[in-house]
């Protein structure tokens, strides 16, 4: 084989050539733009080398939004292909690639960075800390995630995309049935991003355990911080399982081992088990922070404290525990026998109990509250009924014997979109709108935001509700087309119309960002929503040191009490503030990781060895480096405070 043949697309089409041109032009445009406006230095100093949790959060946010649109285009292509029977827009291979990348991009490269965006920005502020425990590792986490995402996204123009589904079941994902390098991309890009996530998990647990403001005991933490804490605990316990699964899968594909093959003792079901031992907790990694956001939003806009704080904490802890005990329900039909299926059936249904407690707590928080229907509140209120449909159908799927009817049908697809979209996407949009003024110092336009909400909420139901019916009628998921005689046509067409509506909704959000950036008032207070937790006690946008004086906390809602009962929050005088230095090493190391991953994808062993050494050189450099950070002097802090107070 000619050396360069391996980089060719195995299955090209005009759309892929067009995207190649588009990617090329975008890269050129970015380089020319940065050079023309002389922004290279700014980009390097202020963003690529930053270790500030707020800026890292914003970079996560931008990446997540970009990936949302990439995954969204995949979704539109799928809905367009299945809109009418026997459509020829995409062929079977392209359809396989599109649903695979849609799943991976949305879960790993959209939802994960989105929750880490908000955690990064909000958690240190909510607990009154100056930064996370390991600011530099935080930068490394982000850049590893980013490079993993980039590696995954170049797959469709260099060498071919993965096509074995986001679950990548073996033996389908093995060399015999997936011959392109696509699945190598899957294994390595998720591995790189996963290392970043694991590092974040360690970082946030340490931060939350050790860096809370004086007086903030664990049971006085805001609910979002609680969910972030439990989420990261799940990350630390679940992600190593994925690390091993991906390692073994990579070895099967690149080194000819027999872990998941069907010869020489290999066991294909082992992959399914390992994948879901990570994969099911992953679902809760995504949903728990969302629950935290809803708790904040609902209590802020109902003007009431959160109902049942302790039961909220207990239920997230119980959910996190159960999340590790249900993985087999993803493959009830794959031959475990009735006893195993029954046990996993019961644990699965048991999760509905703590989740139900949370739903009732939110309802009771709103009960007799003075509800204000702002955009974040609309998403939160919309979430409750839609998510409940997802939950109820989840219990249906959890009944092992009934699952034989639903398994791998569009019913399942409808179910998990009914949980993930209101559960995660609505929450992220709510959180984005809610914390936007804290991030950027102006508010998103409420009127456009409401239009976007209604477009998204209605179109979502139009898209996914018909799938419950086609699924029960037997339409299998992941089929690129169907015959007219099946009668699936009209309902699928309705789904397509809904998907277009969703696209309009997300376009409205982009327009809202543009519109508000141009026209929104910068003259807002630091607490525009009249909110309850500590992040609103500092200025908007937040100064680099977060709080000039560390707050002292006496209650669950210390900031609210400070406002309403005049209990002083900031006592003591301004002292010099210790800050970590910026560093380019995390970025450089992650770039090396990118080349490392690329070399393994294409079995280029010499660059693979060189980059492996490069990674260890970066670590050795860190070991020997002396980096004591720097101090912001009292005078500088006072000047900044004066300036910010003048504006707000």
């Amino acid at each position: 084989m000619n050396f360069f043949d391996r980089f060719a697309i195995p299955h090209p089409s005009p759309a892929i050539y067009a995207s190649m041109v588009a990617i090329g032009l975008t890269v050129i445009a970015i380089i020319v733009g940065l050079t023309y406006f002389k922004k290279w230095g700014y980009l390097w100093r202020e963003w690529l080398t930053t270790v500030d949790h707020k800026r890292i959060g914003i970079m996560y946010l931008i990446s997540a939004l970009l990936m949302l649109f990439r995954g969204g285009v995949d979704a539109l292509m799928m809905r367009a292909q299945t809109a009418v029977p026997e459509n020829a827009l995409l062929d079977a291979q392209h359809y396989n690639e599109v649903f695979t990348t849609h799943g991976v991009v949305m879960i790993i490269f959209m939802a994960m960075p989105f929750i880490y965006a908000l955690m990064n920005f909000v958690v240190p502020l909510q607990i009154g800390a100056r930064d996370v425990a390991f600011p530099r590792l935080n930068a490394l986490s982000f850049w590893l995630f980013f490079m993993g995402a980039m590696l995954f996204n170049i797959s469709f123009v260099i060498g071919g995309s993965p096509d074995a589904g986001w679950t990548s079941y073996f033996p389908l994902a093995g060399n015999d049935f997936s011959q392109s390098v696509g699945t190598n991309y899957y294994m390595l890009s998720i591995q790189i991003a996963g290392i970043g996530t694991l590092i974040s998990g360690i970082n946030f647990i340490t931060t939350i355990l050790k860096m809370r403001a004086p007086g903030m005991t664990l049971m006085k933490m805001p609910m979002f911080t609680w969910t972030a804490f439990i989420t990261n605990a799940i990350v630390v316990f679940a992600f190593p399982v994925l690390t091993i699964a991906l390692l073994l899968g990579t070895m099967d594909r690149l080194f000819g081992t027999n872990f998941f093959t069907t010869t020489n003792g290999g066991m294909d079901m082992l992959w399914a088990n390992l994948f879901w031992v990570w994969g099911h907790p992953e679902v809760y990694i995504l949903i728990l922070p969302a629950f935290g956001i809803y708790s904040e939003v609902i209590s802020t806009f109902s003007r009431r404290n959160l109902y049942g704080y302790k039961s909220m904490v207990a239920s997230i802890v119980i959910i996190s525990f159960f999340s590790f005990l249900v993985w087999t329900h993803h493959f009830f039909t794959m031959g475990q026998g009735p006893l195993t299926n029954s046990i996993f059936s019961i644990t699965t249904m048991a999760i509905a109990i703590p989740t139900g407690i949370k739903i009732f707590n939110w309802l009771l928080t709103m009960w007799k509250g003075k509800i204000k229907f702002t955009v974040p509140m609309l998403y939160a209120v919309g979430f409750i009924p839609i998510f409940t449909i997802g939950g109820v159908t989840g219990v249906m799927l959890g009944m092992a014997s009934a699952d034989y009817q639903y398994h791998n049908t569009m019913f399942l697809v409808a179910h998990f979109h009914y949980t993930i979209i209101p559960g995660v996407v609505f929450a992220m949009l709510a959180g984005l709108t809610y914390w936007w003024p804290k991030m950027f110092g102006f508010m998103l336009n409420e009127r456009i935001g409401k239009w976007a909400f209604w477009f998204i909420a209605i179109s979502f139901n139009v898209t996914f509700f018909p799938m419950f019916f086609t699924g029960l009628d037997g339409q299998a998921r992941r089929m690129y087309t169907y015959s007219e005689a099946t009668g699936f046509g009209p309902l699928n067409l309705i789904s397509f119309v809904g998907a277009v509506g969703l696209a309009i909704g997300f376009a409205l959000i982009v327009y809202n960002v543009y519109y508000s950036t141009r026209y929104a008032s910068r003259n807002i207070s630091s607490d525009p929503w009249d909110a309850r937790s500590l992040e609103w006690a500092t200025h908007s946008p937040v100064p680099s040191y977060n709080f000039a004086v560390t707050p002292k906390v006496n209650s669950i809602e210390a900031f609210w009490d400070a406002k309403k009962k005049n209990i002083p929050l900031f006592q003591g005088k301004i002292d010099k503030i210790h800050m970590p230095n910026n560093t380019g090493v995390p970025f450089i190391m992650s770039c090396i990781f990118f080349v490392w991953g690329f070399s393994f994808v294409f079995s280029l062993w010499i660059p693979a060895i060189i980059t492996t050494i490069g990674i260890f050189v970066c670590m050795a450099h860190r070991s020997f480096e002396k980096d004591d950070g720097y101090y912001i002097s009292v005078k500088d802090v006072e000047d900044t405070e004066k300036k910010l107070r003048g504006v707000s």
Partner: protein
Amino acid sequence: MKIDHSLPLEYSTDQNKLNILGFWIFLGAEIMLFATLFATYFTLVDRMGSGPAGADIFEITPVLIETLVLLTSSFTIGLGVHAMRLGRKNAMLTFFAITLLLGLTFLGVEIYEFTHYVHIGAGLQTSAFTAILLTTLGTHGAHVTLGLFWGLFIILQVKKRGLTPENANKSFIFSLYWHFLDVVWIFIFSFVYLKGMM
């Protein structure tokens, strides 16, 4: 940087305390990593295909040498940390150096063991059993290799910059890592080798 002299040097600053807690959490993740490997090992241990079983290839002598050497190294690094707390820099460096030499011996024997396995037809591609055996051992061995470099860097730093709170912190965390590798080896020794030979 505030230094609290009532605490051991490795705990004496806020950042040091954070580092130690963070590393314990990292070890929690490492436990999950090895637990997954062990679970996979137990799943695949009887799936030999046309290859050999554990009882056919395991030899007690190299395994005993590895065990003895690694357990001793865990003891010597404990002595090293003890010397560090007494502020005896040279004694500490000596114990750290002995630890690394023992680690190097372990690695040497393990490399011999691996070439032996491949030589007698129990390579990575032979069967599911040989693949997970070599992967589990290899993951542990890779950790030891990393530890050798890390430990060497720490010795050089203590030598050059003395027993500062920062260096004491690094040395202590490295000792946690080294003890952890020993614990993993005890599981490998018991559940891979002994169980396989019985």
